[in-house]
């Protein structure tokens, strides 16, 4: 079943990204933020998978024969932290924009208004 793990991870990333892109193209700021978050998740898993999918391999050089690459894990940690902070910021910004303009449409006015 070697193929299936890669297939599952790849199609999972693809599906989440597709949902994220769909949501990001919506007109209201809430789905846009959700879409960005989903894309962030997909990208994080993607980075992780770029270190190749290993099982039973420690990320530290030791006695084991197989060593997983620890670097993507470090990269993904950084990406998660940054993504978390920016998501927090964009939520706050969207809220503030809603208060200022009275609508949560990304154009700052209701369509047709």
């Amino acid at each position, binding site marked *: 079943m070697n193929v299936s793990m890669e297939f599952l991870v790849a199609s999972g990333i693809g599906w989440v990204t597709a949902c994220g892109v769909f949501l990001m193209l919506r007109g209201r700021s809430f789905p846009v933020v959700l879409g960005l978050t989903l894309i962030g998740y997909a990208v994080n898993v993607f980075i992780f998978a770029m270190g190749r999918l290993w099982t039973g391999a420690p990320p530290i050089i030791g006695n084991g024969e*197989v060593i997983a690459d620890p670097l993507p894990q470090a990269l993904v940690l950084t990406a998660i932290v940054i993504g978390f902070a920016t998501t927090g910021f964009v939520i706050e*910004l969207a809220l503030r924009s809603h208060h200022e303009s009275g609508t949560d449409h990304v154009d700052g006015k209701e369509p047709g208004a």
Partner: protein
Amino acid sequence: MSLASLISPHLPVLTVLLPAFTAMLLVLIGDSRERLVLARRIALASVSLGLLLALKLALDAHGGELRVYRVGDWPAPFGIVLVVDRLSALMLVLTQAVALPVLLYASGGWDSHGRHFHALIQFQLMGLCGAFVTGDLFNLFVFFEVLLIASYVLLVHGQGKERFRVGVQYVAINLAASALFLIGVSLIYAVTGTLNMADLAQRVPRVTGDEALVLQAAALILLVVFGVKAAMLPLYLWLPATYAAASAPVAALFALMTKVGVYSIVRVHGVIFGADGGASALVAEPWLLPLALGTSALAVFGALAAQTLPRLVAYLTIASVGTILASLGLFSTAAWSAALYYMAHSTLVIAALFLLVELVASQRGDADSRLEAGAPVAQPVLLGLMLLLAAASAAGLPPLPGFIGKLMVLQASSGHEAQVWIWIVVLSVGFLTLVGLARAGSLLFWSTRPELAGTGTAAGASSKLVLATIALLVGGVAMTVLADPLKRYTDAAAAQLTDHRAYALGVLGGEGIDTTLPYVFPRPAAGVPAGQGTEGGP
């Protein structure tokens, strides 16, 4: 051991740490009314120091020294390295040279319109300087995020409905770009097993076959990302509204942000995926030049159609970026030298224009920054002459540096198959820029409505604001006087970029150059589900 010799090896990291610590200090001081003066002084002192630091690094780099700083003394390519070559030093000087007048201008009142303005400027400078000195792609991403987060907050400085509206859009497009950046970077890592720029320049040429295709895809994804930052066709649509909505000093500082995108394109697509890139050589070449020319042409039409002054200047920013990218797209050292010279000049002029149009707008009563007949300005001679100088410089009239820069671009394009197109676009963009600015100038200063006189500010601009704007303009003009040494510097910078071996020797050290490709870890034993381990992955 003297103090100088103690500090000297740490200069590259100080360019990042100085704004970082200043920012933290400024947050601690706070920005209550009575402390604002203190905060201004600290910020100005810090940026002045940063300018001196950058000049020192540029002088050293001019002598051919490649400064490599290994953070924590971890050997490259495993640790983080900061590298200051001629290009990095030039960008550092440019950053601080724009930041100093902008800070002076902001101290004239804008910094009291919101909270923590000075601290945020310092964080932005930290991100900019970091992006320019880092020698590692992932660190480039991190510094991109630092400068972006600061820019998100700076953009809405002064608040208002319009700023929050474009703020949400600006943040959304940049978050999407950041996601693409991560995808591109991790694809590159997956194929080459490194993210160190010097190491990548060594390894990319050795990647062949199917893996080269993945690598090329990654490079083009990164081109999209940098295209968003640099405002390249068709990814520039976010820029005019954003820059026009930002307060004047912030917009002037943002003139630097598009240059981060340009700089990254030089580093990644010019050097790593440059002429020596093996199977992936010049992967950006078919795209860069046509898109750049299209950017310039469309942007100048935008400038002609602009209804407000800041929007006009924002479109000119894009037009200048188009010219720079077109020159980069020629992929020759002469063209790169021209691009660097023109980039330095256009950044100064665009920043000056952003400040200047606000000075003018503030004296026009109700007409404000709209391009329509309004109250006559209080200082027509002073502001008119400044706008004339800036317009002539931006359009590229001799003997101003815009002319020299464009001449260098045109010369460098001679013999290129797209030479005709480059000449047509660069020259007509120059002409149309002049038309657009002349239209604005005549509306602002001649086609006024005298019956409204007195509705604007009668006092004229404060000397601080005028001084800051003039400083930027003088910086631009000084580039004509110093054209010869500057051109020699940019020539040397462009030549240094193509010298992969010296760069790798400096960054990786003697043995590093021949590190095997890729790092071969023990292959997984049979029976362990191990992905694509067979392709010799990391």
